Structures are given as C-alpha cells and as structure tokens.
C-alpha cells in the first residue's frame, strides 16, 4: 500500500510541476503586463521603467525560478493590482467556493445515485429513457446559459430567488443548482452502467434466490461494488467544481475564488492567476489521488495489482 501511494504521489508532483511551468510560460507570453499595469495614459518610458522595477524584463526562466522558489515556501507573491498577498486573497474566498462546490456535489449525488439505480433496474423503460434524456440535456446546456435562464425565470419573472451576491442562504440556491446540473449527467450514467453490470453478476442472482428483498440486494450487495468508480468520479467532479465555478460565480456575482480568477484574468493579474491555476490543479490531483487510495482501500484487488 505504501509503495502504491508513494508512486502515485511522485507522479502527482511531476504533473503539478509541469502545470506550473506551462502555465507560467503561457501567462507571460499572453501580453505586456507592464503596459496593463501602467494605466492607459502612461507613456512608453513609464511602461519601460515599470517593467524594469517589476523584474519583468528578466529572462522568463529566471522569473520562473524565483517564482518556484517562493511558491515552494508557500509565498505566492502579491497581487499586481490589489498589492495584497495572493494567499490572503485566496483564503478570504475559498470558504465561499467550497460551500458552492460541496453543496453542488452533494446535490448531484443525491439526484444521480437514486435515478441512476432506478434506470439500471429497469433498462429501456420510460424511466430509463427519461433519465438518459435528462443526462443528455444537462450535459448539452452551457452553464452560463442555464444560469441566465434561471435568473430570468426565478429571479425576474417569478421573483422567488435573489439574483446576485451571497448575502443569504437563498442566494446560493441558483448557483448550486446550476453547478449540480453540470455534474449530474456523468455521475448518473456511471451509476446506471455500473449497476447494470453488477446486477448481472452471479452473486446477485444468488442473493435474490435466497429471498433477500430487492431493495436490500441493491444497497447491500450491488451498491458496494458499483460505488468504486462513482467515488473516483465524485472526486474528479469536486475538483472540477472547485475550479469550474468561474463562470457561475461571475454570473451570480459571488465573491469566491472563481470570480477572483475571472477578474484576475481580465486585468492580467498574473500572480493571482498562476496561484489559482496551481490551486485548481493541486486540488484536482490530490482528490484523484485520494480517490485512488480510497478505492485501493475498499477494494483489495487494486492494492494487490500494484504490488
């Protein structure tokens, strides 16, 4: 088990390093930061002066090396515009985003597990078709469109829900639903196919023939085996939700790390964008790693394979 985890961790660190290097290079090649910072009425001389004082005229690799050295010590630098520690800005907002992402994931699981299981029990029934239909349309709808439609209907026409901000729990309803709808299709399809596969196994038939109630068969026998891929996928989905709330947070004006990322990209605040990139990839990698480990722990077969 230890060897299994160690090899996974090493690969994860390599991926993280690659992401940081590629991200850094892409950000610095995307435009002249000094020109943005100097403000619109700045002269060419002022811009050149600023570029020099900010160290932006040094070779890219040198800039990356000093960034990496600082980042390794947990220092992600100062925002170019807010002149505030990136870490402070991040910590002030991560709670909001975490609430959004975790709530959305819980909602998505709560909807897709029962529906996916029902669809698996009655394949090709009207219920199955409906579930597939919902999954398909959920996947096809872009988040921002769904968000605007919901705002228009529940916020403007019906006036049931507040539209923007995060002042009350009600403010979270629409954003969480939009995020959950994005996560439901994959979870639901995986539950359905996983359950269908498991339900065809011999031991299920045995359990059934012993006279165990079909609900108990589903939960106790089938679910235990079908849940493995769902755990992996949930972890991946949580990573996606943490990083993918950029659009939802901007549309609903929720001041989490998604909105911070969006605004920082807009105004070229590279230290913030780079740190957010690192956070999203790190949480993605860590969650995937965690899912692998949990799976290995739940399923001894996986553990043995790697030994």
């Amino acid at each position, binding site marked *: 088990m230890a060897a299994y985890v160690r090899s996974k961790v090493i690969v994860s660190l390599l991926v993280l390093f690659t992401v940081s290097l590629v991200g850094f290079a892409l950000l610095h090649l*995307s435009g002249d930061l000094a020109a943005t910072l100097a403000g619109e009425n700045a*002269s060419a001389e002022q811009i050149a002066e600023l570029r020099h004082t900010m160290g932006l005229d040094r070779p890219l690799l040198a800039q990356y090396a000093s960034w990496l050295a600082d980042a390794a010590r947990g220092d992600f630098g100062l925002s170019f515009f807010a002149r505030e520690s990136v870490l402070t800005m991040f910590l002030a907002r991560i709670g909001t985003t975490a609430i959004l992402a975790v709530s959305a994931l819980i909602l998505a699981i709560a909807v897709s597990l029962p529906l996916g299981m029902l669809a698996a029990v009655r394949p090709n029934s009207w219920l199955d078709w409906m579930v597939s239909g919902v999954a398909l349309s959920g996947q096809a709808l872009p988040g921002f469109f769904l968000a605007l439609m919901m705002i228009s209907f529940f916020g403007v026409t019906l006036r049931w829900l507040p539209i923007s901000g995060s002042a009350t729990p009600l403010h979270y309803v629409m954003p969480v639903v939009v995020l959950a709808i994005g996560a439901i299709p994959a979870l639901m399809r995986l539950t359905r196919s996983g359950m269908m596969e498991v339900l065809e196994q011999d031991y299920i038939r045995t359990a059934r023939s012993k006279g165990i109630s079909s609900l108990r068969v589903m939960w106790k026998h089938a679910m235990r085996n079908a849940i493995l891929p769902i755990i992996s996928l949930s972890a991946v989905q949580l990573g996606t939700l943490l990083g993918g709330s950029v659009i939802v947070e901007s549309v609903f004006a929720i001041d989490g790390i998604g909105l911070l990322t969006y605004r920082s990209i807009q105004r070229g605040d590279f230290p913030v964008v780079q740190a957010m990139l690192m956070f999203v990839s790190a949480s993605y990698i860590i969650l995937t790693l965690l899912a692998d480990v949990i799976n290995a722990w739940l399923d001894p077969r996986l553990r043995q394979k790697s030994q």
Partner: protein
Amino acid sequence: MKISNSLIRRYCAIVPLVLAASGAFADQSNDTLRVAVARETDFIDSIHTSSLDADLFSTIIYDTLIYADRATGEYKPLLATSWTWTDDTTIEFKLREGIKFQNGEPFNADDVVYTFQQLMNMDNNFRQQKQDFGNIAGVEKIDDYTVKLTLKTPEPTFENVLVARVNIWPDEYTEANGHMIHATKPVGTGPYALQDMQKGSSYTLVKNPDYFDGARPQPSIGTIEVRVIPEIQTQIAELMSGGLDMALSLSPNDAAGLDGVPGITVQTGQSTRMYFLSMNVAAKENNPLNNADVRKAVSYAINKEEMVHSLISPDAAVLATNCNPSQNFCLTDIEPTYSFDVAKAKELMASAGFAEGFDVTLMAEANIRPIGEALQGYLSAIGVRVNLETMPLPAWRERYIKGESQMSIVGWGSGVSSIDISNTLGIFFNGSSTDYVQDKEIPDWNAAALSSMDKAERESLYRKTLTRINEEAYVVPLYGTVATYVTSEQVNYQAPVIDFPDLSLASWAK
C-alpha cells in the same frame, strides 16, 4: 461512516459563518441606494489606483478645493472660498472656515499644505504623479486660511487637476497612519464616509450628517451600497427585479434595451473618451498610407453616421475633427471635412496610383470588433483589402507603442484627465513612438498651447493643429463614446455634463 459524519458536521458549521459574512437586502424603505459597478476597486482613494471606479468613491468621500458643477460643468469654490491667479504660475487660495473632517479633525491651511507636499513627493508613487503634479514648485501657508501654490511653468490645464485629482487629506490622521491608510480607511470632508467594505465585492457608505453648505448640495440618501456585479446581464436582471437602484457601467446598447421597461429610467451623456482611425503616415517604404490622397480616400470611404449610430448608439457624437466635443478647446468648425462619398474616394485612389487597391492590417481592441468589421466593409468598396486583427487592449498597446501598427482603431481618454483637448492630441502628435504622423510643426504648436495661459492663443494654436490634421487627413476621427446612467424610477439622478458621476447628488424621487 464516522469520518463522513464528522465531515458533514464540520461542513454544516461553516455554512452559516460564511453566509453571515455579507450584508442584507436593502432599498428605499431603509434609505439605501444600491449601485452596481462591473469592476472591483482595490483602493478607495483614486490617487493610489488606476481603477475608474475609485473616482466614484473618492468624489463623495473627499472634497476638492474647486468643484466641477455636474449640471453646468462650471468650476465653483468648494474647500476654497476663492482662488486667484496672482501671476502665470501662482495661485492663492482662501479657505473655508469652520469645517471638520469625518474624524473630527478641523480643516485649515495645514491640511492643504500637507496634501500638496504629499503630492509633490515623487517617492510616494501615486498614479500619474509626475504628469499631474510634477509641475508644482512649492506650497506655502500664508495664514490659517490662506495658501499660496506656485508652479514651475505656466500650466493652463492645472485647474482641471485641482478639480479632479486633489482630494484634501487631514494632516494629523494621514501623518500618523501613512498615506496608504486612505486606500482602505479614507477620511475626508465629503458628503459620505466609508463605513465598511468587502474588498472586491461590496462597499457601504453613509451620509456625513455634518456636511457643510457649499457648492455641493447636502447629501440626501442615508446609505449608499456599491456592489461589484461583473456580468452585465446580471446587473440588468437585478434592475428589472428591483434588486438594484442604479447601474453605471452599461453599454449604450444594453441601456437602450432597458429604455421603456417599466420602473427604469435610462439617461445618456457624452463621455470624454473618443475613437479615431490611426494610420501609419510616417513609415516611408512601401507604404500607401504615406500618400495624402490615399488617406483622404480612406476618409471619404467611411460612412461614419451609419456606422456609429447603428453600432455604437444613436446618441454618440460623430466626429469631424480629432477631439471629443465635450473636451475644452475641441473646435468643431474645422475645414476641410470628409463626408461619405465613395465616387470621390475611388477617384482619389486612382489618381494616387492605387486603382487596384492595396492590402493593409487593421488592429483593434477585441470589444470593438464590430467597428473594425464595418471599416473592413467600407474600405473594400475602394479596393483596400483590410486584414482585421483584434486583440486584448494590453496586447494592442504593446504593439502600438512598438510602432507595429499600420492601421489601428484607437480609443483614448477617460474621466477628468481628458477634459482638455491636450490629452487627446498629446501622445499621438508629440514626435514620440506613439506619434505615427511625425508632422514637423504640430508637436511645437501643441507644446506652445500647453504652456500658454492665454485662452485665445491656445485656441488659435489648436485650430492650426486640427486644421493641419484634417488637411492632411492624418487620422479619421470616428466617434465619442456615450456614458449611460440607468436608474430605477425611485431615484432622482441627473446625468452629469462631465464624465465623472457624483453619487451624492442622487435622491429619492418620492
């Protein structure tokens, strides 16, 4: 199962904490004006930041010595009861007595002298510090309510700086805490004081109950809450559902869509920002734009009225000379002008030896792509094959400064720094790397105009410059942008004649 239970418990404990962090709903019933802006403000004091919205806060938290009346544009005494130019480089201010800052500190000459000393100290690295305050030679306290300010050289536009950039600070508070304190805990004499801010998302300001009776009316609304809502569609939805009282960053098109919606009032005003088509006149080799007839042909080929009124706004100013009519010294009676005439344009192309046309690259900021496409269409009618390249603003500026532009749509000016024509003509006609024309005389005329205190002389110099620009068709002036003021009908707010809103002027309609 134990693990997940404790996780759930912890999660449930965090939720109410975060939810409780922000304020509650508000509206007229609790005397709160809810305003939306699209971008965050990092520093409340506009001296520290280039964010336009900082002016929104600074204007109502601080007072200036001179105030620009928003209804007429006239300059009126505010913290100064009078100001007198004793010679071309010296101003004497008489100050208002009996005023207190929001922290109780009394206002007098020491505060004014202290503020100017901070502005003159170039180590402070304020925004546009050299440009706006580099010409100040010294400041001197004559008595408790008289201050003398001297400039190094005559600066005819200095009163604009006083009106927009010199917010008077309390000397003791600022000295004790450092000037950066104003970025987060500002203290001024103005009609509103900052009560609370969630950096990047919301700002709450409350009425100053002791505000003095002067050029600015007494504040009327108790609380102003400014929220950052980046998505314009969301701002519109909030306006329509009654969740907002005012939105200031809507484009003319968005605002036009709201015109006629029950409960919403849409006003437009002229902004000082303008757009023109820049051509690389100066490049010598293989450059058709070096030929005046070709540039005139380009000018004749564009149907500006049609393009501007359908793509920007029916209220946008179509420009005949290279300045925005809302700027001081923008002369609009300059000859010649180029009205839409394709036949004449083709004739000029033929006589210049370009009957077959030529290829050219047009660069533009991504958000004005439709204008670029319209120009592409107009120019194709006279054989000019335009390759349109759109990019984010910083990328465009980098290439423009490097001299890589053949043709560009240039947008210039914002707020008070562009209230005078010198701002627009400045960097595009001064012989620098951003001057794609390199006329032999224009830079000298402009420099002379910027050091003359004689209004008639300034006007005649700008007349010479604008006439030369039109005679040679150095640029194609396009349009002035439109500022929009969208409010709920519960709010009384008159669109200002100058492009920096003063929210303290808002009141409830009933």
